[in-house]
């Protein structure tokens, strides 16, 4: 990052305080995911039926659920699981999607057609429905939630990377690298691909929120993470039965934290896009 970029970053941050706030929230959430299990006031699995369904109080800030478990502690501990799922899924789709897209964009021809067809076939499904089908078929585990989320995000990475590599394929510096005797793969990996990373970063940030939402949605309908493990989507599902009878805190707090996390990533993605490419702002 050179001085001009830094200046631009500062300009975006001061012009758009929302981005700055998003970045601070992001830091807080990451800290929570790392330290959550250590700083949680109670054991997230310890039930205490005498103290069940109590509204928020000085003792249990976010109240207790139907088994008397402390909701605040459960939310804090769940941060690591929710983030873990999203980070691993996004990392997997980035690694595979960026590679496939780069190959398709650089070599064209058959590689392009086959990889394009794979992306189109995935996109032919409503994505959440495909994720449901994958988890239902492969088995109800956290690993399969990660896999399903990675698969449904794959087309976005393939497309961005393909398009960005494709426009640079015949750039002057690529020709120069070739003439200097670099092999095709070496040119692609060391000269073209690094330039594709900035737009991919924006995609990753926007995708993280969607990945968290997706994982939470899957566990909300009973796929993947299983009770009694704490996870935001399951906690909302557990609270759903009580909200109609007025015990709002069981579903509200995990839902609100989930929303805040997704919101943070979406704002951050927008902010990053402003930094990378001011013209793209919508």
């Amino acid at each position, binding site marked *: 990052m050179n001085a001009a970029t830094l200046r631009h970053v500062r300009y975006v941050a001061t012009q758009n305080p*929302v981005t700055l706030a998003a970045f601070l929230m992001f830091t807080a959430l990451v800290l929570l995911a790392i330290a959550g299990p250590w700083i949680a006031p109670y054991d997230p699995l310890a039930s205490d039926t005498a103290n069940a369904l109590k509204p928020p109080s000085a003792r249990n800030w976010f109240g207790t659920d139907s088994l008397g478990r402390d909701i605040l502690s459960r939310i804090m501990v769940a941060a690591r699981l929710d983030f873990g799922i999203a980070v691993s899924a996004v990392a997997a789709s980035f690694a595979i999607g960026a590679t496939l897209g780069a190959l398709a964009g650089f070599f064209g021809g058959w590689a392009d057609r086959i990889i394009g067809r794979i992306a189109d076939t995935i996109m*032919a499904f*409503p994505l*959440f429905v495909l994720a449901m089908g994958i988890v*239902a078929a492969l088995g109800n585990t956290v690993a399969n939630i990660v896999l399903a989320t990675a698969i449904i995000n794959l087309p976005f990475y393939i497309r961005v990377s393909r398009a960005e590599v494709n426009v640079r394929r015949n750039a002057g510096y690529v020709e120069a690298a070739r003439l200097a005797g670099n092999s095709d793969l070496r040119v692609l990996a060391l000269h073209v691909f690094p330039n594709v990373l900035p737009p991919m970063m924006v995609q990753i940030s926007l995708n993280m929120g969607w990945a968290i939402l997706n994982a939470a*949605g899957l566990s909300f309908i*009973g796929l993947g993470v299983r009770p009694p493990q704490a996870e935001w989507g399951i906690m909302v599902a557990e609270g759903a039965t009580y909200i109609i009878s007025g015990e709002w805190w069981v579903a509200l707090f995990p*839902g609100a934290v989930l929303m805040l996390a997704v*919101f943070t990533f979406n704002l951050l993605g927008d902010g990053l896009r402003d930094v990378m490419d001011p013209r793209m702002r919508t």
Partner: protein
Amino acid sequence: MVLKRLAGALPNVIGVVIVTFLLTRALPGDPAAYFAGPSASTEAIQQIRASLGLDKPLAHQFALYLRDLAKGDLGNSLSTGQPVLTEIRQRLPASLELTLCGLVLALSVAVPLGILAATRPGSWIDHLCRLLATAGVSLPTFFTGLLLAYVFYFLLGVAPSPLGRIDVAFSPPPTVTGLYLVDSLLARDAALFWASGGQLVLPAVTLGLFVMAPLMRMTRASMLGVLSSEFIRTARASGLPRTKVLYAYAFRNALLPVVTTLGMVFSFLLGSNVLVEKVFAWPGIGSYVIEALVASDYAPVQGFVLTMALLYVALNLAIDVLYGFIDPRVGIEG
């Protein structure tokens, strides 16, 4: 032109069928055991294996799968014993009604807001719209649904109880289209129309909130693009009234990218439909598939994935055709 687009959708249909087939074979352990259910005997599993053709090579199995599909045979549900196709057909109208209402609602809010933001770029209205849209897409639909039910049913008591398509006091209208709103109008039953409409409001708002953001952003971006083009400058310079320039000249041209986004929007809608149906106990195919998932009943799940995917391909095709009607230039190249 329509035929050409049909042919263009064919590879997607083939891809969808292959993936769904692979998903039926990917079941952990023995698919036959899964299809037979947890309490099946060894003989029953053997029988199912033979009837599913699982003892044959993969290519042969695929041919059998295609044959069943062509006959409209998606297998039987274990828990109800009914053919999956019949059940999906019975429940599909409920889901469609919800999805369409959600879409109409989202469009009717998102498009005006997008235009408003585009006519005042950089203003506080613009920033507010952007923030609202980002917030909308960040809301987990299942959570918004619960929140709305809590506020409008439990606290304010203005919404009917969030359970199903129709209050128990009413009986459903005679089935013509399967959409209660349309059927009750056809039956000239105003009370029933309002009753089913009332049940529909909260789930439809929940769905609409989620898909508002992409629609609004696209409207804003494409309006901004069109408003800075030369023919708008000319129209303004010629002294045409502001509203005429905005709606007759700019909006029509800005509509195209918005129609293109509809494809993505439908992907969101059909996916989150499942979650919203669970929250509001809506008797569509979404809650059908969740019941099946809970019971480890796989034939309905696969039938559901296939139906949704084919529906989505069909919707994309419809959007393509619509696109051709709005902009005749597209037809020439495509």
